[in-house]
């Protein structure tokens, strides 16, 4: 049982114990700087969180250990995050963490030690289907985390348990309260856990340095402003452009393109952001792969994005997705997750987007 010290994994652990499993709590130490929180920080990765997790384990009378995966995390998640931004992509570190840490490093280690499965406090559901275990959306649409679990391979899914997926967050909070878990009032952690101050641009600047370039208008080609690094811009972004002059028509301008070589950021009207088709690399098929002929599914490109109707198929080692309703502002490096109703079909990293219909 992966125990972060937060509400969700604490209730999940309690439910695992109630279900009669032989449960061992494991807290993952992911941060290299082992510090105590200031009591206000949104919880993840401080020593206080490890202590909270330990207290929950005590209460549930289960053994508890801390596994130090900070090296693996730094390499597979943080370095990857920085590198992706350097390449002008927009990665999702939670997804990467699930893929490389929680359901690879942790799961493999647990299986080697002859445990049967890893349980986590993610909001998602596993349903046993004819072709094997299926991953479905959680009942609570606000909390649903199936998107960030779209990176799980069938074998990983077969050894995963998500005890919370059938309930809403309110029920989980109430249950934490009823069970007397002190963490019941802890705030949810939303931010990127290794950037606790939430200043992603500052974090990237510290790691990538200043890489100045120009901000250019898509229509006139005019240079509108200078910037300190392309990594501060994501396709579709509107805020923080700090353009001195408004557009000729007074309409807001958005980041249309980020070019690494020339360090040029292009801005323009939102219509230019509409994506009609995309290609994903390194596809992961949750239960079974798609074939070469298109099927009607739903596609989602952000953790809390709206799923849109799409036609998708496999083409060699790529996932091809035609969006029947265009999605505005997709950056390379984002993950596309395909759904069949509530069922996750698979995911891939977006490598190509097509913006003309």
């Amino acid at each position, binding site marked *: 049982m992966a125990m972060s010290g937060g509400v969700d994994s604490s209730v999940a652990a309690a439910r695992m114990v109630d279900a009669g499993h032989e449960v061992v709590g494991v807290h993952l130490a992911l941060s290299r700087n082992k510090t105590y929180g200031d009591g206000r920080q949104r919880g993840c990765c401080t020593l206080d969180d490890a202590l909270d997790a*330990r207290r929950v384990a005590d209460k549930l009378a289960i053994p508890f*250990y*801390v596994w130090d995966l900070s090296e693996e995390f730094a390499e597979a998640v943080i370095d990857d995050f920085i590198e992706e931004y350097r390449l002008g992509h927009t990665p999702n570190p939670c997804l990467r963490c699930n893929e490389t840490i929680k359901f690879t490093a942790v799961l*493999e280690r647990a299986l*080697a030690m002859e445990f049967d499965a890893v349980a986590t406090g993610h909001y998602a559901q596993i349903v046993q289907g004819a072709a094997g275990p299926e991953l479905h959306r959680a009942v609570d649409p606000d909390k649903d985390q199936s998107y960030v679990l779209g990176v799980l391979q069938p074998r990983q899914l077969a050894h995963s348990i998500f005890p919370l997926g059938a309930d809403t967050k309110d029920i989980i909070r109430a249950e934490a309260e009823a069970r007397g878990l002190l963490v019941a009032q802890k705030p949810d952690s939303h931010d990127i856990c290794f950037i606790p101050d939430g200043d992603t641009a500052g974090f990237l600047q510290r790691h990538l340095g200043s890489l100045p370039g120009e901000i250019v208008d898509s229509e006139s080609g005019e240079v509108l402003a200078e910037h300190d690094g392309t990594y501060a811009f994501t396709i579709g972004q509107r805020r923080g452009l700090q353009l001195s002059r408004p557009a000729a028509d007074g309409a807001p301008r958005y980041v249309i393109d980020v070019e690494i070589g020339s360090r040029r950021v292009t801005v323009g009207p939102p219509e230019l952001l509409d994506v009609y088709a995309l290609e994903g690399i390194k596809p992961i098929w949750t239960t079974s792969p798609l074939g070469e002929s298109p099927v009607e599914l739903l596609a989602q490109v952000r953790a809390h994005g709206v799923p849109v109707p799409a036609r998708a198929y496999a083409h060699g080692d790529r996932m091809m997705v035609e969006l029947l309703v265009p999605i505005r502002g997709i950056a390379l490096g984002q993950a596309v997750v395909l759904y069949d109703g509530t069922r996750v079909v698979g995911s891939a990293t977006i490598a190509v987007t097509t913006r003309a219909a």
Partner: protein
Amino acid sequence: MSDRSYLDHAATTAMLPDARAAWLAASEHLGNPSSLHAAGRSARKVVEESRESIAADLKTRPSGVIFTAGGTEANNLAVKGLYWQRQQSSGSKSPMRVLASAIEHHAVMDPVVWLGEHEGAIIEWLGVDHDARVSTTKIAESLAQKPAIALCTVMWANNEVGTIEPVERIAELCKEQGVPFHTDAVQVLGQVPMNLGALGADAVTISSHKVGGPFGVGALIVNPATGFTPLLHGGGQERDIRSGTFDAPAIAAFAVAVRHAVAHQEEHARAIRDLRNNLVERVLATVPGVILNGDPDLLGGGRLPGNAHFSFPGCEGDSMLMLLDAAGVDCSTGSACTAGIPEASHVLLAMGVDERTSRASLRFSFGYPSSSVDVDRVVAALPGAVDRASRTVSSRSK
């Protein structure tokens, strides 16, 4: 017979029934040992009798026994108290040198590091050989160098690998150079004879819970002629070196535990040495590739009799610990833990063990409740644990 085996007596050991009885008895009496009335006097009597008892057991004078809230405080008082005092009496604020072994417990190492970072102290870490032993020749050389040395601290025996250090010789060398010498004897008490009068160190740390007394009480046994700047200011209860109301019940129980440790030292050492040697012999015979760390002479006087410390190359120590825990064996990775996060041991690294092997290490330490049943349980559980833990490493390093 319990279905678990506790083999982590170097971390803490079971409280002795006599110590508990003394503790409860003293807790029945009302009175602050520093008060002047009858109640105060009777509480004070408990403290002073305990002090005299401990001094007699360790062959030193009662006036040198400074009670503290444990080994950690005693070590901090020795390291910082000596540094500040020496700097003050040198009449200048210029930084002084501190000689410290590279294998100290964190309760010595961290105050030394702190002095370096915050007071500008010049730290000289004394290296060790592959058995974790310091070199007296090198220490003599360091002592002979200028500029001024505030103190030298070398633990009497190492808590991780059990190596006993040549403290008698180091104390002599320090005395020759007029350098105060501190030794952390927390692990030694009860396992090795201690004659502090003969040793002549300026400060010696002991801790109650390692010998069957309660937690949170210990002592720094000082040469009353050596000055210490206090860490805690207040009522000045302990010769103005340490303030805070005496914990009379804990001190009474501590004295009982020390008396027991010293009176039974010889037979205790023999009993745990036999158990330890049996464990080492069988582990070396049954686990392929296992390495015994520390002084290999199991019959000589260079190793704590209750300590066994192994590396299992190809395994993660914390996986091993978890698997042995599940198999009913309480042992330790021996290294420092921050909220349960294992780190590679600075002791093993100082001995020249590589980082990976040092993370593959476990300590088993025996105490008075230990028996051959415990050895049998470890020997039975180890091969399976090693097998599974080695798979965790190969899957991690992918």
